[in-house]
């Protein structure tokens, strides 16, 4: 019972944060809402017993990536966003799309076989040891390829940053 209450509180927090992200006019406020979503998701992982994933979620998404967002917004001193005719169009087209997406998700959840299996899957991923075993045995090639992708991205960023200097 308590677990269910905690789930709904955290889920509501995540959804409200996501809605607020779109509604807010100022980029910093939107970024803050996104941080709320990230932390709520991490707390959800924690409530499922996946401590490691929760901590990494906060360190990587809540910490590193969102700090970068906030940093860039502060550095550019971005002001309140302007609404144009195009953004009105996005609103009109966006609502049906959002409803469609919700419908698909609801259908997928309704068809999925109950929660017990989902719970057992998360348990296998709960502790650090089993996650690292899976990363470095079953998923070692995707893992290493992802590392290469990140390395290429870093080099790309360096090349772009150095371009102005001869």
């Amino acid at each position, binding site marked *: 019972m308590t677990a269910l209450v905690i789930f709904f509180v955290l889920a509501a927090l995540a959804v409200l944060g996501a809605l607020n992200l779109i509604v807010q006019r*100022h980029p*910093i*406020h939107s970024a*803050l809402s996104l*941080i709320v979503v990230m*932390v709520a998701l*991490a707390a959800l992982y924690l409530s499922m017993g996946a*401590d*490691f994933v*929760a*901590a*990494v979620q*906060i*360190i990587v998404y*809540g*910490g*590193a990536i969102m*700090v*970068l967002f*906030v*940093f860039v917004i*502060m*550095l550019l*001193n971005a002001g309140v966003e302007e609404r144009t005719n195009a953004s009105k169009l996005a609103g009109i087209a966006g609502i049906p799309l959002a409803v469609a997406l919700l419908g698909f998700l609801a259908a997928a959840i309704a068809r999925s076989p109950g929660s017990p299996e989902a719970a057992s899957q998360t348990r296998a991923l709960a*502790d*650090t040891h089993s996650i690292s075993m899976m990363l470095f045995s079953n998923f070692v090639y995707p893992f290493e390829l992802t590392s290469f992708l990140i390395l290429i991205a870093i080099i790309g960023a360096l090349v772009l940053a150095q371009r102005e200097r001869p």
Partner: protein
Amino acid sequence: MSSFLTANAALIITLVKIALILFIVLTVNAYLTWFERKVVAHMQSRWGPHRVGPHGLLQPLADGAKFLLKEDPTPAGVDKFTYFLAPLMALALSLTSIAIIPFGPQSLHIFGYEIKLQIADINIGILAIYAITALSVYGVALAGWSSNSKYPLLGGLRSSAQMISYELALTMSVVGVLLMAGSFDLRAIVAQQARHAQWGFFGWNLWPQILGACCFFIAAIAETNRVPFDLPEAESELVAGFHTEYASFKFAMFFIAEYTAMITVACLIAIMFLGGWLSPFPATPFWNFTHYLPSVILIPFGLWVIWDGIRYETIFGRLVLPGIGTAMIAIGAALIVFPAANEFIQGPFWLLSKILFFLFVYVWLRGTLPRFRYDQLMSFGWKLLLPVSIANVVITAFIMLLLRSGK
């Protein structure tokens, strides 16, 4: 009522522990400011605070009252929500990380309930602290941005950049320790160092991880924005940095957050590199006499406090100081009389000694070193600290592999 108490015993114990640790940490924070002013003053041949109470001991209380009673203006044009959120975030996050620190190996047993000297015993201890540290950048960054003023914005930008840069070195420098312990759990890390308890001081992680320990200590100073890395609040260039526009209690919240972060970092260094609650003396029968060290320190110090107190003319000096001295002597005597209590106090005693030592080093550095220049700070973090801590990981992993294959 009693059934309610027994049914929710774990919850109530935790709440009491939180209240107790909050009280202790806030008091220690207040007296840390006194300690810092006093030590830096003596380093510069001054007296430091000495007006309010004997040795200026009531100065923190006076400062606290001042923080509460001062006018608290909100500058025009600030982003209200973020402006109020920033100090709250900074304070809440830095206080949360204390919850994960274990203060001793054994548990208290009261009324059949086991009470650990730790609020949250979680198996990802160190990762959780890093998660909290990762979020604590926002307090500073948002304070700088929301103040709608140039100096705070520059200070906030600087400190975000600094904290992101040094977080990497801070994380990489402990990987060696984590490899040796094979766990994120702070208790397991101390237990791993206890395997060579007969070597005492030389069994600690400090020796195999000397590179990691140095990197961690430097990165931790930078992460807590202390001298010589206190660029976010460089007075000569940025007034007071990110908290220029904050006054009264909101300023105090940033201040408490900074000092709590210092305490957390001192706890972490003590636990990960200096054996946590382990004694520096070898755990052999010959060295058993060192178990009386808490009493040996408390009793003479208590006597000195009494002697010092009765020379004062004020009520505080005449009554309170001798009272504190008597309490110290009583505790010291009780520890000699009850060996069980003495054994229990060993762990917390050594951990607190190490924490105090590192807090002193923080203040010592502040009294000694000049501030870095910003470009020096960045190149030091990225070009020296990060490569060295990565090299430390590689070397540790390589040696561990060699040792394991040799067996």
